[in-house]
C-alpha cells in the first residue's frame, strides 16, 4: 500500500511538472520555449546540396566539409534567419550538406547566398585582350590574387559623393602579391571576377579599375550598388566555400551541376498554419471519440484510462518541448497514432482483468493477474513497433525527406511512454481505487456477476 502511495506521489509530481512546463506552451523551461516545429508546419525551406570534393585530398575532406558548414552557417546568420540547421552528410564517400531554413520567405535569395562561389578573383588582360587570372609569387609559389587573402573585416564606406565603397585589407600573403602585381600593372586595368562572371556595378558594366599606384595593405572597390556591396561584404566576411556545391548528374563520366540542389522543398507559412489548425481539429475529434468509447465500454477502468491518457498526452508534449523534438506533420500523425495505440496497453490489461473477474477472482486479484498476464503481450507486441521505428529512422537519414524521421521519432517516444503509463500509472490508480474500496460494484468494471 505505501509503495502505491509513493508511486502516486511520483506520478503526480511528474504530471505536475509536465503540466507546468507546457501550460502555457511558451513558458521558458530550461531555456526552451514553445514547441519546435518542422518546416512543413511553420513554413520554410529545405535544401540539400552535394559537394564536389574531387579536387580535395581524401584525408582532408571531412575537415573541409566542416569548414563549408561553418561558412554556410555564418552566411545564413548574416541573412538574419532564426535557428537554421546545417548538417553535413557523408554517404558512400559522397558528401552532401543539408540546410533547413525555417520561416524564410525568399528562397531564391537564400539559395544565392548558399550556393554562390564567393571567391573574388583578380584578373588582367593578356595580349589578345582575354581576362586571365593575375598571379604573383609568395613563399616561392606562384599564386592567383583573390579574396582568399582578404582579412575577414571587409566593410562598406561612402565616398564624398555618397557612393558606396567596399573596403578590404590584405593578409600577409595578399600584401606580398598585391605589391608585386599592382607594381607591375600601373596604368592598366585590373578585372574583378566572381566565379566566371565579372563583378558588375550599379550601371551593369564590369568593374575593372585602373591601377594608379602600388597597393600593399588595403584596397577598395568602387561602383557597386549599395545592396550588392553589402551582400558582397557579408559573403567575404563569412568566408569562402572551398568546394563547389550543386549536384551530380548521372552519365559517363558523371557531371557536376553547380548551384542546383539535389533536393529543394519550400513550404508556404500559410499552409503550415493551416496544417496545424487541421491537425488540432482532427486530434480533438479523434481523441474525444476514443475517450467516449473507453468510458462507455470499460466504465470505471475506462475512466481511469481516460485520466491516464490525459496525463500521457501532457507528459508527451513536455518531452517534445524539452528534448526538443522537431514536430513535423507526419510527426503529429505519429503522435496521434501513438495515443490510439497507447490505449492498446490499457485495453489489453482491462480485457484480461475482465476475464479474470468473470473467472471468479476477487477484484484485487483480478487486477494483479490481469496486469501480469497482459505484460508479456504488451512487451512483445510493442517491440515490433520499435523495430519498425528504428528502421524508419535509418531510412529517413538516407533520404531528402526529413519528415520520415519525424514520424519514426514521435511514434517511438509515444509507444515507449505508453508502455510506461499503462504499467505504472494505470496500475497504481487501479490499485489505489480498489484498495480504497470506494467502488465494489462489479457493473462498474463492466462485468455481470
Amino acid at each position, binding site marked *: 500500500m505505501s509503495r502505491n502511495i509513493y508511486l502516486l506521489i511520483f506520478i503526480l509530481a511528474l504530471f505536475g511538472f509536465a503540466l507546468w512546463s507546457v501550460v502555457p506552451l511558451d513558458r521558458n523551461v530550461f531555456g526552451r520555449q514553445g514547441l519546435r516545429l518542422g518546416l512543413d508546419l511553420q513554413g520554410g525551406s529545405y535544401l540539400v546540396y552535394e559537394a564536389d570534393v574531387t579536387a580535395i585530398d581524401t584525408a582532408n575532406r571531412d575537415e573541409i566539409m566542416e569548414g563549408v558548414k561553418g561558412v554556410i552557417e555564418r552566411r545564413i546568420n548574416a541573412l538574419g534567419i532564426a535557428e537554421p540547421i546545417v548538417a553535413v552528410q557523408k554517404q558512400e564517400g559522397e558528401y552532401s550538406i543539408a540546410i533547413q531554413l525555417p520561416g524564410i520567405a525568399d528562397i531564391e535569395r537564400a539559395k544565392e547566398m548558399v550556393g554562390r562561389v564567393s571567391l573574388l578573383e583578380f584578373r588582367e588582360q593578356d595580349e589578345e585582350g582575354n581576362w586571365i587570372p593575375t598571379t604573383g609569387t609568395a613563399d616561392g609559389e606562384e599564386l592567383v590574387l583573390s579574396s582568399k587573402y582578404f582579412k575577414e573585416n571587409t566593410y562598406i564606406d561612402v565616398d564624398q559623393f555618397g557612393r558606396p565603397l567596399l573596403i578590404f585589407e590584405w593578409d600577409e600573403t595578399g600584401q606580398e602579391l598585391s605589391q608585386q602585381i599592382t607594381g607591375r600593372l600601373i596604368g592598366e586595368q585590373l578585372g574583378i571576377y566572381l566565379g566566371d562572371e565579372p563583378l558588375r556595378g550599379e550601371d551593369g558594366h564590369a568593374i575593372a579599375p585602373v591601377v594608379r599606384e602600388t597597393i600593399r595593405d588595403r584596397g577598395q572597390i568602387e561602383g557597386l550598388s549599395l545592396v550588392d556591396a553589402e551582400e558582397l561584404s557579408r559573403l567575404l566576411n563569412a568566408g569562402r566555400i572551398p568546394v563547389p556545391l550543386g549536384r551530380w548528374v548521372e552519365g559517363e563520366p558523371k557531371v557536376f551541376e553547380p548551384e542546383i540542389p539535389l533536393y529543394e522543398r519550400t513550404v508556404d507559412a500559410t499552409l503550415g498554419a493551416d496544417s496545424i489548425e487541421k491537425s488540432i481539429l482532427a486530434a480533438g475529434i479523434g481523441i474525444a471519440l476514443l475517450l467516449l468509447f473507453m468510458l462507455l465500454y470499460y466504465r470505471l477502468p475506462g475512466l481511469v484510462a481516460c485520466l491516464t491518457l490525459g496525463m500521457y498526452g501532457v507528459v508527451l508534449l513536455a518531452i517534445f518541448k524539452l528534448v526538443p523534438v522537431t514536430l513535423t506533420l507526419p510527426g503529429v*500523425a505519429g503522435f496521434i*497514432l501513438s495515443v490510439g495505440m497507447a490505449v492498446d496497453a490499457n485495453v489489453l490489461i482491462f480485457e484480461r482483468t475482465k476475464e479474470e473477474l468473470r473467472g471468479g477472482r476477487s477484484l484485487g486479484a483480478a487486477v494483479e493477474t490481469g496486469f501480469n498476464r497482459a505484460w508479456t503481450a504488451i512487451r512483445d507486441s510493442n517491440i515490433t513497433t520499435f*523495430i519498425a521505428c528504428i528502421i524508419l529512422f535509418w531510412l529517413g537519414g538516407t533520404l531528402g525527406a526529413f519528415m520520415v524521421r519525424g514520424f519514426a521519432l514521435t511514434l517511438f517516444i509515444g509507444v515507449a511512454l505508453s508502455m510506461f503509463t499503462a504499467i505504472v500509472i494505470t496500475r497504481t490508480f487501479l490499485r489505489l481505487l480498489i484498495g480504497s474500496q470506494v467502488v465494489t460494484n462489479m457493473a462498474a468494471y463492466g462485468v455481470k456477476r
Partner: protein
Amino acid sequence: MIDFIGKKQWFFRISAILIVVGIISLAVFGIKPGTDFAGGTSMTLQFSPPVEQSQLREEMAKLGYDKATIQNAGGGNFIIHVSEITSGKARELAETLGTELDSQARITDYYLASPRVGAETARNAGIAVIIAAVAMLFYIVWAFRRMPKPFRWGTCAIIALVHDVFIIVGIFSLLGWLAGVEIDAMFITGLLAVVGYSINNTVVIFDRIRENVSKHISPDFAETVNNSLVETLGRCANTALTTLFVLLALFLFGGATIHYFVLVLLLGVIIGTYSSICISSQLLVVWEKREWRAILPFAKRTA
C-alpha cells in the same frame, strides 16, 4: 463460440482474391512513382476560387505539361507532379494557370528532387521493407523460442505481413490508376508503420495461443487456436477501433499533405487486424495439421 478455424478456407479465398486483383492491377497499371522515387518537381497549388480538376488538366496539357500527374487534394488544392522545373519557373506556371482559369493560384508547397536520387531512394525503401520483415521474423522466432518450432510461428507472421503489404500496394496501384495517387517516401513510412502494427496484433494473438498451449486447454491445436482467437477478439477489435477513431479523424480533417499517408495507416490497421485473426493464426493450424490443400483457394474441404 465463433468458429474461426472452420471458416479458414473462406478467409484464404477472400485474401487470394484481393491479392490477385492487386497483382493484376500492378501488372496492368503499375504504380505511379512520386517525386521521391521518380525525381522531378511536385507542388501543391491552391486555387481560390477553386477550379475543376478537368479544367486544370486541360490547361496544363495546353501549356505542354500533358504528362503531369494531377491529384485532387480537396479544398481547391491540387498536387501536381511534373518533370523538373525550377522554383522560379514553377511560380510563372502558377501565375499563368491562375490567369487562364480565372482564379488565383498559389504554390503552397514546392518540392524538387533530383532524378538521380530517386532510384537510390526506391532501393533504400525496398531494403527497409525487407530488413523490417527479416527483423520481425527473427524477433518472433526469439520471442517464441520456448515453443516447439519457433520458426514456424515467425514464418506464419511474416506471411501475414507480406499479405498486408501486397494488398495495400495493390490498392494504391488501383488508386494510382483511378485518381492519380502517387507513391512516395511517406507511403513507405506508412507501410512500415503498418508492418509494425500488423505484427503487433499477431504477437498479441500468438502470445495467447502460447499461453493456452502451455495450459493444455485442449488436446486439439485447432481448438486451442480458436479459443485464443475468441479470447483476444475483444482486445483486437477495441484496439483497432480506438486506433481507427483517431486515424479516421486525421483522414477526414487532417488536411491535404498527409491525406494519403493516413490512408495507408487506415487501410493497414484494418487489413493488419484482419490478417492477424484470419491469416497468420489459421496458417499455424494448417501447418500443424499439414492441411496444405486448405491454402489452395478453391480446393474442396478436407475436413
